[in-house]
């Protein structure tokens, strides 16, 4: 096989791949057949309500929790094998939801501590981010504000030349100014380095702002997945208004996510082929019909609601 073909195969390989992932904690089913694919070079938002299984998925990917069944691979390596898990973590930066760090260390100590694990540590970036984030190097971590703690956690993952960043609710609990600073830093860094970002959030606006791909998870299963552009292109809301009460209609066209009736209005959310739905709807004789694009927020809310 030629070098070029090798390179192409590597480029095509998925950074994260999970198939039919199940995770039970006693009687609680945290993951129920989750499948996930994250291609290299993407900023992949992982959207879900609280308790949807986002953190469990991340823990499985990083070898912190073992799946009950199913398969999870990162960089093509099995996430549940101890040796490959160490290799995965060597190439990955992780920021936990509560920005878990050693409270008893100072900022300078934890930077020195973390750098020792990564031979390719970027000392130049460390200085840049320490200055940009105005990190107090001599202060104990327990004395840092949540915002500063988040910035420190970010510095620790950005300077290690990671190929993959896994961020669990990176902006939770931050004020809008710090949230913006964190997101901009992330986007700026990814633009200048070759890396993949996989971040969980329940903040739709920030996924909309920085992600190019998204997976929506609900009750341990992926309910929507794809590039944001494709989702925006494919998802449509078909709105039909009738003279009297809207009929209790069913549609045979593929891609119907949800049908709602409210008085004279019938709304159909479609993930593909809105025109075919519209053709079917015309047979119902609505007084007016409209096909309108939908926002990520609507896709999220409708996908999650459709599962209820």
């Amino acid at each position: 096989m030629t070098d070029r073909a090798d390179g192409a195969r590597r480029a095509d390989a998925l950074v994260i791949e999970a198939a039919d992932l199940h995770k039970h904690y006693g009687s609680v089913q945290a993951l129920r057949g989750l499948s996930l694919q994250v291609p290299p070079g993407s900023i992949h938002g992982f959207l879900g309500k609280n308790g949807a299984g986002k953190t469990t998925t991340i823990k499985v990917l990083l070898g912190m929790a073992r799946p009950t069944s199913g398969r999870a691979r990162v960089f093509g390596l099995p996430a549940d094998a101890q040796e490959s898990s160490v290799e995965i973590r060597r190439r990955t930066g992780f920021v936990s939801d509560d920005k878990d760090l050693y409270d008893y260390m100072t900022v300078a100590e934890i930077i020195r501590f973390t750098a020792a694990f990564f031979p390719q540590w970027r000392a130049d970036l460390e200085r840049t981010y320490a200055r940009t984030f105005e990190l107090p190097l001599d202060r104990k971590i327990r004395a840092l504000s949540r915002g500063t703690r988040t910035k420190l956690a970010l510095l620790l993952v950005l300077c290690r030349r990671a190929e993959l960043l896994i961020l669990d609710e990176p902006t939770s609990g931050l004020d809008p100014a710090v949230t913006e600073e964190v997101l901009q830093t992330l986007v700026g860094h990814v633009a200048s380095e070759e890396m993949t970002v996989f971040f969980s959030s329940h903040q739709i606006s920030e996924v909309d702002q920085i992600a190019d791909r998204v997976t929506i998870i609900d009750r341990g299963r992926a309910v929507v997945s794809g590039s944001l552009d494709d989702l925006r292109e494919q998802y449509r809301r078909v709105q039909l208004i009738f003279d009297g009460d809207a009929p209790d209609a069913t549609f045979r066209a593929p891609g119907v996510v949800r049908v709602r009736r409210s008085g004279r209005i019938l709304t159909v959310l479609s993930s593909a082929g809105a025109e075919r739905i519209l053709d079917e709807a015309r047979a119902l004789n609505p007084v007016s019909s409209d096909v309108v694009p939908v926002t990520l927020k609507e896709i999220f809310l409708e996908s999650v609601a459709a599962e209820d």
Partner: protein
Amino acid sequence: MLWYKSWLETRWRFLIGLGLLSIAACGAVFDYPTVLKLMPLANNIETTIDTSTKIGRLVKQAAALQATYRGFIWWQWVRQNLVGIWTVFAVLLGSGGLIAASGSGGGGALFTLSLPASRTRVIGVRAVTALGELLVLVVVPSLLIPLLSPAIGQSYSIVDAFVHALCIFVAGAAFFSLAFLLSTVFSDLWRPLLITGAIACVLALLEGALALQSIQIGIFRVMSGESYFRGTGLPWLGLLASAAVSAALLNAAARNIARQDF
């Protein structure tokens, strides 16, 4: 750098233990002149205590042992102070760790688990660091005895100090290992500490009760190196058995950590 992290996590327990044991060692040496002055009273112990009973015989034995400086150091320092205080710090240094860190905010368990280091390595470094500290905790105060003894006109063998220190370390590591294993089961600092402390107390009481029946077995007897003190050699069987128990407990702790979800 995991060594550095383990050191930061345990340093205060270690330093407090080192301070306490060093003070106790100094106290033992500089108490001896006072004990010497009381020796005439000990020689007439039959007039105040009924030595025909088992307890009376033990008291007489203890008083007789302290007639020599070597006997006094073994009885007061090794058998009582060093074994007792060191065991407390063995349990303290064995408690805590990865699970306790995951239970308390700011413990950094997830941060540790996200580093490119296996759980076995993380827990191994923690165990070796604490065992190293426990070795220092027993050796350094023990060496103070031969170093300070000339100050009161006495001498004490460095070899004896080392042998007793190593007996305490090898046999007493079982208490550390038990607390260490329990720390991989419970998510708080207190249960491993209290359970191991309770087991140590029960063993001590049991050993005392057996001694009254002239049955000479028990971990604290091995720790104090009594057979070596009495000239009948090292308690090899007890040392080997304790070392084997410690190794088994540490192995169980490593396996327990490796299979856990965080």
